[in-house]
């Protein structure tokens, strides 16, 4: 397992270089004046600011050298300065990322808790009314424009039923807990402030549910399909004929063999969650990188957009790495083949 983990971690390096190559290519594809786009129209009118900028990013050098300069600045944690907030993009991202991680994590937990039982039961009772219902609802789920769903949810649950709190991660009177992880639920637990944890969860509930719409649909469908492929197999009949009870057969024999594709799709769903966070956070006023990306895009704040792009791609890559490792952990055959 250790060799496998080590090898897989080594593979991360070319992937990360690839990601930076793409973002570098995008920054160089600006059709108008790229310098003005990256430092802002106002700053671009001052020759001395432009000169400093050109020197810092090596813009007078040939392209390969420019890329190396770009890479060096990124490694140092220098993502450039935001045109709109006038702060280093890295500092902005550090402030907003924990909120997004917390929201996405709660959303994926909700998705898994709902999707696995739904998918397993739909497959078990294939063709029945429950299966039909699950298939209909999940098809709607994966086809949903969630930005509209978010608007509807706010209108109903906040404006009309007053069931959920307003914008933000906590009620406006509450101070955030001392920062350890930046996730208010975890930090609240560490500080022993359960009232605060409850309030943070209260604020998380609706955005997380809306964000989970796609992934619930996706994971349920894959779980169902994967279970269908396993359910007809002989080893289940053997288990049953040995007198194992149906729930035991379902969970220990069927689900364990059907879980690999489900884990893969969870990794993919996480990418959807990060993308969906742009919409959900914007509409719910959730102070994460998704809302930051939206405001950056609408203010033509190019360095900030690229910063979010880079961070999202890196997070996505790390999640997929975790998926690969989980694969090896669950399936001894893969472990054997890889090491």
């Amino acid at each position, binding site marked *: 397992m250790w060799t496998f983990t080590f090898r897989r971690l080594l593979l991360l390096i*070319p*992937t990360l270089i*690839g*990601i930076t*190559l*793409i*973002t570098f290519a*995008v*920054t160089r*594809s*600006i*059709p*108008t004046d790229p310098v003005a*786009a990256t430092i802002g129209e106002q700053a671009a009118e001052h020759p001395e600011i432009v000169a400093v900028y050109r020197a810092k990013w090596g813009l007078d050098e040939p392209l390969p050298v420019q890329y190396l300069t770009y890479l060096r600045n990124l490694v140092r944690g220098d993502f450039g300065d935001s045109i709109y907030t006038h702060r280093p993009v890295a500092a902005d991202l550090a402030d907003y990322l924990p909120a997004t991680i917390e929201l996405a994590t709660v959303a994926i937990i909700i998705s898994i808790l709902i999707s696995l039982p739904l998918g397993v039961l739909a497959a078990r009772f294939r063709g029945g009314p429950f299966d039909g219902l699950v298939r209909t609802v999940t*098809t*709607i789920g*994966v*086809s*949903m*424009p969630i*930005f*509209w769903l978010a*608007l*509807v949810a*706010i*209108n109903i649950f906040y*404006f009309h039923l007053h069931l959920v709190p307003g914008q933000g991660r906590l009620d406006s009177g509450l101070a955030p807990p001392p920062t350890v992880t930046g996730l208010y639920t975890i930090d609240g637990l560490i500080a022993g402030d359960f009232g605060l944890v409850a309030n943070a969860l209260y604020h998380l509930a609706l955005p997380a549910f809306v964000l989970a719409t796609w992934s619930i649909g996706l994971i349920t469908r894959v779980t169902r399909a994967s279970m*269908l*492929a396993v359910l*007809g197999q002989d080893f289940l009949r053997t288990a049953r004929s040995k007198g194992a009870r149906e729930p035991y057969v379902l969970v220990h024999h069927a689900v364990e063999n059907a879980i690999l594709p489900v884990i893969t799709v969870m990794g993919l769903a996480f*990418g*959807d969650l*990060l*993308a969906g966070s*742009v*919409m959900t956070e*914007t*509409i719910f006023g959730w102070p994460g990188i998704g809302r930051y*990306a*939206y405001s*950056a*895009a*609408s203010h*033509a704040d*190019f360095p900030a*957009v*690229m910063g*979010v*792009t880079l961070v*999202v*791609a890196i997070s*996505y*890559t790390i999640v997929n790495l975790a998926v690969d490792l989980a694969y090896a952990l669950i399936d001894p055959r893969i472990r054997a083949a890889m090491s």
Partner: protein
Amino acid sequence: MSLERTLEAGHRPLSRAAGDLLALCRRHPAVAVSLVVILVWVVLIAGANIFSPFNPLQPAMKVRLNAPSLEHLFGTDQLGRDVFTRVLYGGRSTLAAALAVVAAGSLIGTLIGAIAGFGPRWLDEVLMRVTDMVLAFPIIILAMAVAAALGAGLGNGVIALAAAWWPQYARVTRGLVLELKSLDFVAASRTSGRHPAGILVRVILPNALPTLMVMAAVDIGRAILNFAMLSFLGLGARPPAPEWGAMIAEGAQVMDQWWVATCPALAVLTLVIAFNMIGDGIRDWMDPLMRRRR
């Protein structure tokens, strides 16, 4: 030459494809319903000027935010414009953009995948690594970055999405080409002295085409959803031009007048569901294991 002709005729005649479609509809009634839904939308959108007497852009302040009625089927928006009319005209932008994204994405992807699968090993390596790099980004995030670089607008939105769209086609095409390359009729074509490029274009690709076309057709739903998202974020079509995502964004200001945002949203939802249902039907149909068990 005549032998080669027969071998090249691997593509199915049109009547056969129509027969397949009919059989598919009979087995999965949902596919038939979905086709009807798509057809209805296409007719409505194409004939927008016939089905609606209103101008999609002209404000009419006297009838601001009217609820749906017989005169205004989907009500009116903040500027008194008829929402039904705007949904139909908006469908032109959204649908055209989605088609353009899928067309451009599948074309680029097929080209890259074909070259990777048929060309020398080193080229395959290079092209597939580039494909993996792009795949490391969630589609809408990469599209957002490209759209931010190019500037907002309908055309730039299409370019931005297409730039993130092609890798899946590159992968599938490469796989198909590698598979077809090893078959006898390709070897026969090679021994008959054909130029390799000719073999790729005239012999291999026609046989890969049906799979790719099905993939592209089903993909349109996802493209609609993604383009609407990009427009909602202000990076695709810009108001006042009617476009479904942009209209939902405008309707977000007046959610108590639910029809303004909900009607274009339901247009997106119904079309995307229809395309997804067709995709499910075809996937079921192509999977012999599933077919047997039904």
